[in-house]
């Protein structure tokens, strides 16, 4: 009984709590990183006043958001208006339930050390060998990719709902843009993921990483075109420059969140940054070997294993986030119709072609 509770409730709940807190903290400091890095790109310093080099700035900003007045426009659809930020934010968190931060046996050492405090050795063994508890992830779902894909699409619904419920023109235009963007880029994104699936022949993210380990090569070298497309579509999915059309301050004032303030705005804000981390994590998992060290099957590089796998994962995600910010600091913004053109006329055909070629090659060698 105790074991079952541990295996299916306590440990997963603890994991969820840890992941949620870690993600929220990461999001908070991602905003700090973005401000700092953009500052450095633009030969200025970024936040400097709250804490050492502005390290406490995210906390100050968060407090400010909570304290600020929460304004709901008089003619807005109150219910939808209040719930829309959540619709955007929760999917961004849900995705992290299936993202593998480490190998399936990542926590066994920790559990072996902690659990004997409560349990007899036999139960400890059973808990650890249940195959559910030790993984560096919340859950190993065998359709993880489908889950990621469908849940993250829900996030954009939050944007559309928020823009629509504001009953205001600029947010409405922002919402329209984002739905157009979703339609054009989700499709190409799906096809790039499909080509990875063809290579890996599994839908579980954990298995995909393990396949990469077995193959001894990260899939980015197998599927470079898919990766580039995935990255570009990922920028579009997260509404980042050069694809930040739904919010485009200089055109639509703030796009879908023009009418939002205070805490609700903060949630949108969190959702956007959580989305960045999600996309980076998926990219790392699918293409860059997840928690694996570089050259996973080169023996003499074994000393790299001294670094915990979770650190490898985070380092890779960090690189992606850095690139996200770097790109934002460099490129201008696309126009709405150009975005659609690129999406449908270039990225989608390329993604399909890539898929077809992959399929043909796989068929030939299987």
């Amino acid at each position: 009984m105790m074991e079952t509770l541990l295996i299916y409730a306590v440990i997963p709940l603890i994991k969820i709590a840890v992941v949620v807190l870690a993600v929220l903290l990461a999001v908070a400091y991602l905003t700090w990183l973005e401000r700092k890095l953009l500052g450095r790109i633009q030969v200025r310093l970024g936040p400097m006043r709250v804490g050492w080099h502005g390290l406490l700035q995210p906390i100050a900003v968060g407090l400010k958001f909570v304290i600020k007045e929460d304004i709901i426009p008089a003619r807005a659809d109150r219910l939808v208006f209040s719930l829309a930020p959540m619709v955007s934010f929760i999917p961004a968190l849900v995705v992290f339930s299936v993202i593998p931060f480490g190998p399936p046996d990542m926590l066994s050492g920790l559990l072996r050390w902690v659990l004997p405090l409560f349990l007899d050795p036999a139960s400890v063994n059973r808990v650890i060998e249940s195959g559910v508890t030790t993984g560096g992830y919340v859950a190993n779902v065998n359709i993880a990719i489908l889950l990621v894909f469908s849940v993250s699409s829900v996030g954009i619904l939050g944007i559309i709902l928020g823009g629509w419920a504001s009953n205001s023109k600029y947010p409405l235009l922002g919402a329209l843009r984002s739905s157009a963007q979703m339609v054009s880029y989700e499709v190409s994104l799906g096809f790039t993921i499909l080509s990875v699936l063809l290579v890996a022949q599994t839908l579980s993210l954990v298995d995909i990483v393990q396949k990469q380990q077995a193959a001894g090569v990260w899939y980015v070298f197998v599927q470079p075109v898919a990766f580039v497309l995935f990255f570009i579509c990922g920028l579009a999915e997260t509404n980042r420059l050069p694809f930040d059309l739904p919010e485009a301050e200089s055109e639509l004032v703030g796009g879908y969140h023009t009418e939002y303030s205070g805490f609700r705005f903060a949630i949108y804000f969190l959702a956007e940054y959580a989305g960045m981390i999600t996309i980076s994590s998926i990219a790392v998992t699918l293409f860059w070997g997840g928690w694996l060290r570089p050259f996973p099957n080169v023996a003499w590089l074994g000393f790299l294993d001294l670094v915990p796998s979770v650190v490898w994962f985070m380092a890779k995600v960090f690189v992606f986030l850095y690139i996200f910010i770097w790109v934002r600091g460099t490129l201008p913004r696309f126009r709405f119709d150009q975005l659609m053109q690129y999406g449908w006329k270039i990225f989608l055909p390329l993604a399909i072609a890539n898929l077809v070629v992959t399929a043909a090659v796989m068929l030939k060698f299987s």
Partner: protein
Amino acid sequence: MIGFLRRILLIDIFKGLALTLRYTYSKVYTEQYPREKVKLAERYRGAPRLNNDPETGETLCISCDLCAEACPEDLIVVSSVRDPESRKKVLTEYTFDTSRCLFCGLCQEVCPTNAIELTQDFELATYDRKSMLWNRARLEKGWDRIEGHKVYHK
């Protein structure tokens, strides 16, 4: 063909990225203003001051009214009485309405004795309009030495 390749391989976008990367790790241009004092030019036209003779401590103003004449906004009022003995004008009061000042410097330009001068103090924010009307005492003291005025840089 080269153009096409440039376009496909996003060469120009990577050039831009290289530039921003280079700047990321170069020297920053920021001046941390409230923490550091800003270096202002000697000619900077900021808060007005009515100068005294450094030796005698008497005002340099000879009440000639030229500054009031020169001011486009008519914000200077010079009041004086004529000393019956020396037949000289003696300054009694001098008001300067900083709320309407253009900081054009025409007053200091016409001043024959360098009495009125626009100094390098620029932190002129106050909490009420009344305190933007400066009287003689205030003008002679100089803005940065007035009590209650917060100087933001240390």
